[in-house]
């Protein structure tokens, strides 16, 4: 089949926003892809797809599936057709995310200090007190420059009218940024000319920006602060990303067993003795960080780390205790936070969220469950979700029972049909649902967001779940400045 036929036959689904095509034809930001694609044959495109997979495999960008005691290496599926956002759309997203991060930072500072927002009755105290990630152990700890959310990956989706909504905030240790960067490198190999011609905004300075921030956060003004990336080790599914980031920034990749705390200072064990560590970019969850304070059975962390942190002898990125701000029930209050702290209206809207410990809202959700998605408030990665449109009656009944047993543990949102993009699947271009995760970096000099981010795609037909653990893949994401925009 020719590429022209492929692109012409691409179907759009009614009542769903498609990123490439609308009822009037191809959107202008996709013209160049459309033209280039039309000149290629299906074989060319599949050849490119194969090349992309080989590039991921040979670089070891894989995760391991364990079955029958033998590890099988798989790559995260990558689709070669990029997802394109116009410069104007992006500028709006950027403004919205910056506003949100600013408010969330102020919220974290407040909630672990004076708790003014509770005293003023904006957020109910019991909502915070019942949040499993509200970390009393870090109460009153002062963090450098009052920054808590140094790195965030806020998930956005696009509804049927083209509006971007905030789906959830990831403020703890968001992953995926290496895929954003590697996807672009692969695109450079498979569509070199196209990328050059299309005016795509650059993303590859992300590691340098992060590195600058990490250095600036060192507790003392040192000429050469020791910055490390703390990983759980080679069996972690994001290990590739940890090595990738360490390499790109030229910092040490350490495991918990490489570090120790002595007299409230953190050291790493080197062949020439102990060496003090100033900044830790950690990719280990709070609960595993310090067995003396959190889970005593954690072998991944460093005993005494919290004491060094409290003393201000080491900077930890992201701050501990951020989970209270990306809790799915607290999410509903972010518009109020923005009003309260910044006196502004929210730029990127939330999705309406029903609190299950409110009896009226709960009843409403129970009546309309087939139009809802029910989420556990402390879960992520696509786990603990019930999609009302596809769930069995038994699953719905079970979820209702679970909600009644622990109303605070759940929220519900109306199902939003995510926008679609074309994907090359089974020799055809088929629409698949996507979300968008831009990565925002917050440092002493303000907030920077690399243009684009990671587009995750649900590869199963009709599926709205994009998480890689649930059969999702990813795409390169282009922010393209259009002429006369």
């Amino acid at each position, binding site marked *: 089949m020719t590429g022209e036929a492929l692109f012409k036959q691409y179907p759009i689904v009614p009542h769903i926003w498609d990123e490439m095509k609308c009822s009037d034809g191809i959107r202008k930001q996709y013209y160049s892809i459309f033209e280039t694609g039309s000149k290629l044959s299906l074989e060319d495109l599949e050849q490119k797809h194969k090349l992309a997979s080989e590039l991921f495999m040979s670089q070891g960008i894989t995760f391991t599936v364990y079955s029958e005691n033998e590890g099988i*290496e798989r790559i995260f599926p990558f689709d070669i057709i990029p997802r394109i956002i116009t410069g104007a759309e992006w500028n709006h997203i950027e403004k919205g995310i910056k506003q949100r991060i600013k408010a969330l930072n102020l919220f974290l500072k407040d909630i672990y200090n004076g708790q003014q927002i509770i005293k003023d009755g904006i957020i109910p105290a019991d909502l915070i007190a019942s949040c499993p990630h509200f970390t009393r152990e870090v109460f009153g700890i002062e963090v450098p420059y009052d920054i808590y959310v140094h790195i965030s990956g806020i998930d956005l989706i696009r509804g049927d009218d083209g509006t971007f909504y905030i789906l959830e905030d990831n403020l703890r240790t968001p992953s995926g940024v290496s895929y954003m960067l590697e996807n672009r490198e692969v695109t450079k190999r498979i569509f070199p000319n196209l990328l050059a011609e299309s005016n795509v905004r650059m993303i590859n300075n992300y590691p340098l920006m992060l590195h600058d921030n990490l250095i600036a956060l060192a507790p003392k003004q040192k000429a050469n602060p020791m910055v490390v990336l703390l990983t759980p080790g080679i069996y972690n599914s994001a290990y590739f990303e940890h090595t990738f980031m360490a390499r790109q920034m030229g*910092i*040490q990749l350490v*495991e918990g*067993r490489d570090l120790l705390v002595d007299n409230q200072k953190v050291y790493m064990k080197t*062949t*020439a003795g102990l060496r003090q560590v100033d900044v830790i970019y950690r990719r280990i969850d709070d609960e595993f960080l310090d067995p003396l304070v959190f889970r005593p059975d954690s072998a991944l962390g460093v005993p005494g780390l919290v004491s060094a942190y409290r003393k201000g002898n080491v900077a930890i990125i992201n701050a501990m205790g951020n989970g209270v701000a990306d809790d799915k029930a607290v999410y509903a209050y972010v518009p109020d936070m923005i009003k309260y702290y910044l006196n502004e209206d929210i730029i990127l809207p939330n999705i309406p969220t029903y609190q299950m410990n409110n009896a009226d809202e709960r009843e409403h959700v129970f009546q309309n469950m087939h139009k809802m998605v029910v989420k556990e408030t402390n879960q992520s990665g696509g786990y603990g979700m019930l999609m009302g449109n596809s769930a069995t009656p038994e699953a719905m009944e079970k979820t209702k029972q679970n909600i009644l047993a622990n109303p605070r543990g759940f929220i519900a949102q109306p199902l939003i049909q995510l926008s679609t993009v074309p994907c090359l699947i089974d020799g055809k271009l088929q629409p698949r649902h996507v979300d968008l995760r831009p990565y925002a970096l917050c440092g002493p000099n303000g907030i920077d967001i690399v243009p684009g981010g990671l587009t995750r795609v649900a590869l199963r037909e009709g599926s709205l779940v994009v998480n890689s653990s649930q059969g999702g893949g990813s795409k390169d994401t282009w922010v393209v400045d259009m002429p006369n925009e």
Partner: protein
Amino acid sequence: MLSRIADSLYWLQRYMERADGMLRLMKTSYILSFDKVQTSSMTWEPALKIFTSLSAHDIETLKKDNTAALQYLLLDTKNFNSLKVIYTRARENARGVQDQITKEVWEQVNQIYHQINQPGIAEKLAGPDAINVIDSFIKYGDQFVGITDSTMPRGQGWNYMNLGKFSERCLQTAEFTHSFFKKVDFDFQNEQDILFWRSLLLALSGYELHLKNYSNQQHNYNVAQQVLFDKNFPRSLYYALDRANKYLNDIAASNPVEGSIQLKRSFGRLYSSIKFADLDIVEREGLEKYLIYVRKELNEFGRALGRTYFSYS
């Protein structure tokens, strides 16, 4: 440098060097297995003795079956020293230090790992393609050496890597030599023809050098001279110990921690046992005893090295 990193770099190279020596020995054994001469009884025996922990009885059975021997040595994960296990460990070490080795080195190790895990490799080993499989892995190993040499920065990491490489090489040469000389009871007078020694020399990539250097018929004596004392032969004990000694000294100079003096001293003793000796001395004291001494000292050195520089857990 982090102790864990140093440890992993050292072992990465030990495993890669082990794989290399093993493959060369296997290639020789495999080719020899087709020669219908009396030495063919030797074919798989050295490889099976060195790279497996099988009983004498199992070795007797396995050594008559080319395919079974090959598959056990290369692919069987029950064999803790099979090529597959060695490569897997090399890759795990490389994975843990991915930010400390160059991207090129990592990709090479990763590629080798995927090659040994490719589907259908067991069938290939059973057929006429077996030698191509072995050859391709020898090539990958050579590429690894070249890539490492041309991309890795010289520095601490490099020193640990090379210390690992040359200690492993020294051990291997001692092992290989031991298993061949055992057949002649470590007796220099009990002459064997060059066909017998050819397998040892080919496994150490030293056959051509041997032909160039020695013209008389005292093969036992000449072979021992070459594998122990030849300064220009990269797999001789002398060469390997000399290199290892250099890298150990470089490491100790940049890591003046407690224990590094003792470490240097004990390795120096081993090194001088070859540097200030000749074949007559070794013959007088017994070649077998000497080879056992070298292996014992090297293993002891490995443990002391771990205590001094790698003790992070």
